[in-house]
């Protein structure tokens, strides 16, 4: 599998992992390569590259997982991790099944980024810099970054599974700072995919222009209002609303620990019938897609809300086993240094029928959150918060003044049930999601969505 570890070594490591008992063992081997560079003040800087290899071995016994990880993929390294994982067990050894290789087909990469000269990446950043600055003399600062990462993984387990994946992601980000007299505003934009350098062959400079335009528009911003009001959320990264509000609460580890407001809600209506939502790790080329999850399970499209009813939670191997269901292919890990846990892949609200104009026209006075800087939820209480990076007032069904400093706050179940319009202008955006100290790439998506009432926490006095 990707030449990371051979079958004989994997079998040997699994046998050693189960030497003191356990009902399941797994070897996860990984090679990570990456390059990043940035431009700031018009200069290319922070040019860096990384190359890491290592293995994580886990043994499951009862409800306990024993896990050890080491840097390096030499046979001695992998065996050392296996021995360490087994060292806390004291029972009779168990036998792994013989391995059967199962081929997974990695997502296609047309142009390997590591084969593109670093100078070309630097030129790309220079273009982003120039395109953003060309938007206006008030663009005072610009920084942009380029990152490529390749993860080759091999997974072998005591059920006989032996598989692997080869994942390459590319992402660029731009932050523009606009200044007028004493007023300073920022605008950020990103573009990323589980694709190669071909992602950047269209016109990546557009995102620089968008980020600059955003910062310039905000120079005229008024302080955001405060209070409960209708909120229209923009497409794409607006989907982070659903990611935080619902996605995290559907991860089966939260459910099984009673730490989610969605416990016991399977099959229940949780939203208006117009709402359909999915987690889909198979969307071609998307940022959150992989051929298999980090336990070797093929990724899949899981409908989590069907016509307003909750239809599925998101499972990894262990949480699925506990409930006697199949894994939904959501067992993900940041690297070989972490244990897999249930995570979202690409989570989105399926397109509806309204146009964004119709959705906004239905609001006499409200708030329009075009995009967020990010969000956070406590799945146990359902309390969430989102920082709005670009927001406007809606007055008389029309978008009016830009607003600065707005935060949306609320409770998941109330806000999900209050979605009363879903737009037809669907698209996906990229995010980095943190949970339990692990960061993984996730996609979020939706068309425009309207929430009947939500609390806007602004800075207006």
């Amino acid at each position, binding site marked *: 599998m990707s030449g990371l570890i051979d079958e004989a070594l994997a079998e040997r490591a699994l046998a050693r992992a189960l030497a003191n008992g356990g009902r399941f063992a797994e070897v996860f081997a990984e090679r990570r390569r990456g390059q990043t560079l940035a431009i700031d003040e018009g200069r290319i800087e922070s040019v860096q590259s990384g190359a890491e290899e290592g293995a994580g071995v886990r043994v499951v016994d009862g409800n306990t997982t024993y896990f050890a*990880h080491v840097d390096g993929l030499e046979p001695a390294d992998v065996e050392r991790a296996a021995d360490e994982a087994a060292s806390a067990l004291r029972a009779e050894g168990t036998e792994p099944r013989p391995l059967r290789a199962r081929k997974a087909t990695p997502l296609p990469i047309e142009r390997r980024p590591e084969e593109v000269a670093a100078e070309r*990446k630097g030129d790309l950043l220079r273009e982003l810099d120039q395109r953003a600055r060309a938007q206006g003399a008030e663009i005072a600062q610009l920084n942009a970054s380029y990152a490529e990462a390749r993860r080759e993984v091999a997974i072998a387990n005591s059920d006989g599974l032996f598989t692997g994946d080869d994942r390459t992601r590319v992402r660029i980000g731009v932050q523009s700072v606009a200044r007028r007299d004493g007023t300073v505003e920022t605008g950020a934009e990103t573009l990323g995919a589980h694709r190669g350098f071909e992602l950047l062959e269209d016109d990546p400079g557009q995102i620089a222009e968008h980020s600059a335009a955003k910062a310039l528009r905000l120079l005229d911003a008024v302080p955001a209002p405060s209070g409960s009001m209708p909120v229209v959320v923009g497409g794409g990264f607006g989907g982070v609303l659903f990611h935080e509000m619902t996605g995290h609460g559907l991860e089966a580890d939260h459910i099984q620990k009673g730490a989610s407001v969605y416990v016991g809600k399977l099959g229940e209506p949780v939203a208006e019938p117009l709402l359909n939502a999915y987690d889909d790790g198979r969307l071609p080329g998307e940022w959150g897609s992989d051929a298999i999850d980090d336990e070797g399970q093929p990724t899949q499209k899981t409908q989590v809300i069907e016509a307003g009813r909750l239809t599925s939670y998101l499972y990894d191997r262990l949480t699925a086993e506990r409930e006697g269901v199949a894994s939904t292919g959501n067992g993900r890990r940041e690297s070989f240094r972490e244990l897999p846990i249930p995570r979202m892949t690409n989570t989105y609200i399926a397109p509806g029928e309204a146009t964004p104009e119709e959705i906004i026209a239905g609001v006499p006075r409200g708030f329009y959150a075009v995009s967020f800087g990010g969000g956070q939820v406590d799945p146990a209480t359902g309390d969430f918060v989102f920082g709005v990076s670009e927001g406007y007032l809606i007055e008389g069904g029309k978008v009016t003044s830009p607003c600065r400093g707005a935060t949306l706050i609320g409770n998941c179940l109330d806000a999900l049930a209050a979605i009363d319009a879903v737009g037809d202008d669907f698209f996906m955006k990229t995010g980095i999601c943190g949970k339990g100290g692990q960061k993984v790439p996730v996609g979020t998506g939706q068309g425009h969505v309207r929430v009947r009432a939500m*609390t806007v926490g602004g800075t207006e006095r």
Partner: protein
Amino acid sequence: VSELSTAARRAVEAATGAGAGEAEAYVSREGGRTVRVHGGEVESLTAAIQTGVGIRAWSGHRVGYAYGTDLSEAGVAAIAARAAEAAAVADEDEFAAPPVPAAVEALPGLSDPSIAEWETARVVELALRVERTALESDPRLVGVETAVYADSSERAAIASSTGVAGEYESSSCYAYLQALAEGEGARETGLGFGLARGPRGLNPEAIGAEAATRALAMIGAGKPASRSCPVVLDETVAASFAGLIGGGLSAKAVQRGRSPFAGRLGETLASEAFALHDDGREPDGPASAPFDGEGVPRRRTALVEGGELRSYLYDTYTANREGVGSTGSAARQGYRSLPAVATSNLVVAPGALSLEELLAAAGDGVLVTDVAGLHSGVNPVTGVFSVGASGRIIRDGALAEPVREFTIAGELAAMLGAVSAAGAEPRWVPFGGSVSTPPLLIAEMAISGS
């Protein structure tokens, strides 16, 4: 000379051999374990070993970086070559130069032998005790999401072609849990945590009890009315804000026009009640070390004193740019990251008032015990913030009902001017970096609720 220092020196030679004019290598080896418990059982037990090298290469005034896990001779040579190639891609920057060596004073006591002495079974028992204390505290305490104990011991060595050489050892551990309380038809969560250099420094009962107390206190929470009022930030929340302020005092953010504190050195920003310094050698500080991520000695730097903004934090590059000295503020997140300006241990000076006295001084207001959405609700360039919060109403100078689902909003620099008192009892908090702070009373803040 230890194995790590030798490896660092060899990596420097490999980089200069690969064409770098100057080079620096940072090698670290870290071992650690993590125990997660749930429902009286061990959920997972992790043993970790990590070793790697990060090499910075200069080619004239161009700088590049590469890191990797392969410390064999061929592996290090490949990493060194990539660092030299990376330097060729960077643009010339006249201030990019390796640090000059300075005498480093040893800093003993950073490593606690109890990490090695405590067998895994003993730290498992500690984690179980953390969970049990919370679960047994009150019938309304219905669960603990996960209780975690983790420790690590690290050795790091640095060497450079300009003569920097150093090595040290340190250890750290922490335990935390998220307790779940139920009442009045809703679930509430509460965090408890403790940090130390080794497990003997942790008090599992206190950690468990803190989570339980916090979760139970939130039962029945409603939304407060929107208004402007005095606000008391507890230590965890004050630490998060101190961390944001520390980020704005990075000379890199300042020099690049991305800080609300740019151009304000010498200005009176804060009230007399607020003083802040950074101390990379603070004996109790979790981030203490004899030298920073580029081998420059750690030290104490006064940031805000007598209300006045006294200094920014500098690494070698930002110091070169202003013709000043580095404050030893180059931080690394292990061998994988380029050194970058950051706080070490941020210390907010304690005042004279107990928490009760702070509440009494607030009169009518809100005690904020938790904030959410700091990464998206704060604009680090302007300092404008609006973040989610929860806590307790303060009425007639005493704690009253719990409140949640509201935001607190303001602007970082203005907030410093509005600090009207600091509590007398500081605490080390792992939020916002590594921060020691007492609770703070802010004279007025905007609250947005119902």
